[in-house]
């Protein structure tokens, strides 16, 4: 029975433990509950992946009503992969959360913090598995609201402004998506995504659908932080509480990207999105601009958190570019990189959080010599950083390899060269950190710094080891991604 109910269970585990968490006064107990719930949902996510492995699709009817009347939950390999992404990386971050919160927040607030965290996770899970367009909007809002609250909890007062800006941008984006959904509904009379996909092609010339597509693209681009709508991201990531950044960087934009892929390929259809609306003409230049601008800006940052945030802008550019290139390698790269980058960035931000935990700042000058004072944390950081650069045998290499192959498959040599150059830029900003960490003297006030407690160190190292693992065994990442890419593209041809 459990196996058939899994799609609901994976969501409910986190969604239901959130209110219970909020009621527990004692932060430690709340944490234990949260841990229990998220690790169970990790198990559920893997169980789902094993059910859909090979390309089957699960359909679960909420309330027992068949679609399109009721709301359908659909799990295929792509959503299962994203589920693992959310639950696994979220669980790792939560594991480190208790220790890292201890220094920044009064204990009775912890439970609320965990509850918000769980809500955000639950919402992202909800978005991932739903098969109903309007339901996407509902869960998108839960995730957004919890994200705003989480960001606003940052220590710097600029966190508040960052959160507010994100709230405004995010709400506009969400409302745009709502308009897009309304337009689709207007023309087709249905909200079920699979049903929409069937009914939309005959309306491809309808101006309403075209407008719907435009609204959707702008709205989701805001959420994905596609250049030039990335404006909210660097500040939000920089000023958010340190562990929160790790979680957000891993999940929020990735799930938005997932929604983008779902709608572009599955709902609107490749034919419409690319042949008719020429989405690639728009996305390719924008993503390239994002890659270059993000990498360039990252190089010149002296605050590591901000540096990593800008690097995220660039890395998201890679993923969008992968989508826009519209061939199997490109899409494989986008999906793989979605997973890999989530893992590496979460790990990097978590490692950085560990450093801030000890040093109290993420400025390069304070991190000087940290390779000597916190050798284990820094070593993990270097591995993850290598992944970001795309060093072979790390996960980052796999996704970049596919992306460059995609560019070469198209015969676009300059683009491939550009990607290599941007990798060099990534190398430059990671090298900058490594240089500070290992080859600069430890500032006097940080002489007594030592490695963080095991409870933070373990998740950091799990991220680092996973980065290597997924650089070697790619059945679950690139393997799945390739099948997904073929499936998504074959709908058109």
């Amino acid at each position, binding site marked *: *029975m459990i196996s058939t*109910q899994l799609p*609901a269970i994976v969501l*409910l585990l986190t*969604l*239901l433990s*959130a*209110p*219970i968490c*909020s*009621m527990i006064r004692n932060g430690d107990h709340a944490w234990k509950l949260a841990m229990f719930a998220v690790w169970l949902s990790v198990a559920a996510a893997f169980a789902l992946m094993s059910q859909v492995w090979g390309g089957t699709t699960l359909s*679960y*009817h*909420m*309330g*027992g*009503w068949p679609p*399109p*009347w*009721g*709301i359908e939950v659909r799990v295929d390999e792509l959503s299962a992969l994203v589920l693992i992404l959310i639950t696994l990386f979220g669980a790792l971050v939560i594991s480190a959360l208790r220790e890292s919160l201890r220094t920044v927040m009064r204990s009775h*607030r912890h439970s*609320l*913090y965990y*509850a*918000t965290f769980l*809500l955000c996770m*639950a*919402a992202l899970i*909800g978005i991932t598995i739903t098969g*109903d367009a*309007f*339901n996407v909007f*509902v*869960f998108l*809002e*839960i995730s957004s*609201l*919890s994200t*705003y*609250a989480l960001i*606003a*909890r940052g220590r710097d007062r600029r966190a508040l402004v960052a959160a507010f800006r994100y709230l405004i941008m995010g709400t506009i984006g969400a409302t745009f998506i709502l308009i897009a959904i309304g*337009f689709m*509904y*207007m*023309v*087709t*009379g*249905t*909200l079920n995504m699979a049903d929409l996909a069937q*009914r939309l092609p005959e309306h491809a010339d*309808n*101006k*309403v659908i*075209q*407008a*719907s597509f*435009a*609204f959707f693209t702008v709205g989701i681009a805001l959420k994905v932080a596609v250049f030039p709508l990335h404006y909210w991201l660097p500040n939000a990531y920089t000023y958010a509480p340190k562990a929160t950044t790790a979680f957000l960087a891993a999940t929020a934009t990735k799930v938005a990207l997932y929604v983008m892929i779902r709608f572009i390929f599955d709902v609107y259809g490749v034919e419409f999105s690319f042949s008719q609306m020429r989405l690639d003409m728009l996305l390719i230049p924008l993503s390239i601009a994002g890659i270059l601008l993000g990498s360039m800006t990252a190089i010149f940052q002296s605050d590591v958190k901000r540096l990593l945030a800008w690097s995220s802008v660039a890395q998201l550019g890679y993923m969008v570019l992968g989508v826009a290139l519209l061939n199997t390698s490109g899409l494989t790269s986008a999906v793989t990189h979605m997973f890999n980058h989530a893992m590496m960035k979460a790990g990097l931000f978590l490692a950085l959080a560990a450093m801030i935990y000890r040093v109290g700042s993420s400025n390069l000058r304070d991190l000087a010599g940290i390779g000597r004072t916190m050798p284990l944390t820094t070593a993990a950081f270097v591995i993850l950083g290598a992944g970001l650069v795309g060093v072979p045998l790390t996960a980052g290499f796999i996704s970049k390899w596919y992306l460059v192959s995609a560019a070469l498959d198209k015969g676009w040599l300059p683009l491939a060269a550009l990607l290599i150059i941007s990798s060099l830029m990534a190398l430059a900003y990671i090298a900058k950190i490594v240089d500070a960490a290992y080859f600069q003297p430890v500032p006097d006030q940080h002489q007594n710094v030592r490695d963080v407690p095991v409870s933070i160190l373990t998740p950091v190292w799990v991220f680092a080891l996973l980065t290597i693992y997924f650089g070697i065994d790619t059945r679950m990442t690139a393997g799945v991604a390739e099948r997904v890419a073929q499936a998504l593209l074959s709908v058109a041809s």
Partner: protein
Amino acid sequence: MLVATAVTIIRTRKLMSAVMLMGFYSLLCSCIFMVLDAVDVAFTEAAVGAGVSTIFFLAAIAIVGRTSKPTLPGKTVVPLIACIATGALLFYASFDMPYFGSADAPVHQHVAPRYLEDSPQEVGPPNVVTSVLASYRGYDTFGEVGVVFTAFIGVLLLLGAGTRRSGIERTAPGDTNDESMRQKIVLREVSDLVIAPVLVFALYVQWHGDFGPGGGFQAGVIFASAIFLYALIYGIVPAQKLLPPRKLAYLPGVGLLLYAGVGVYSMLMGGNFLDYDFVAADPHDGQHYGILIIELGVGITVAAVMINIFYSFSERSL
């Protein structure tokens, strides 16, 4: 008229009047909804737009001040372009939209007919909106309760639970004329008369949602409004004595869990999540009980959340 109100809101720099106009605007909207046959929505819009959000705005303005500076000249260009682009896109799209009110529009052809034709048999309540809301798309509504709950947790995380107490008599935040207000005894008397019926009305709306417009959400909002009114007139402290924030803070979670509980129960009974057919032996009864309980969950959560948020704002204003 809507447009006129909206434009005035843009032009005015006095936030107070902007907020008041906002309330008026919401009322107008709810009239339009009424005309468009969306009674439930009209009801909600009136309670939320004209009621709850106005109160929130007032509470916030009491804290942050009432006037805004004019926009710098150079800063209007980008927004203007963006607006016009959006408008143009919408305008472009509007030419292919089905004509307003036409019965053969696709929306009326595909999914909706089943709701209208079969829901009395399949679900029960004559109010189709309730059937769709609570049963067909009960999962959405579950998410919606989640949104409300998230807002609650978020506000709590940011502003605190509103449990700080001090010896000083607290005054209502939204009402900036509280001194003069308190002198108006007549108002108190009247409001005493009003509050009780409002509470009763809220309960009525809660249970009557099956048949007429209404349901847990509207009831929750109305219930909260009654408390707001009480707090505005008597001050926040008596209100908090009536409904202690510490206890109230549990209720949103309880409501959400109640809702989910029904879903989980139906899962345990062998159905899917939120499949009320399995709640009782007879599917028809099951649907009935299921909707009743989840509406109660919605009502509890919404009312508790609104009051909690209100408390949180109030605490900050001093």
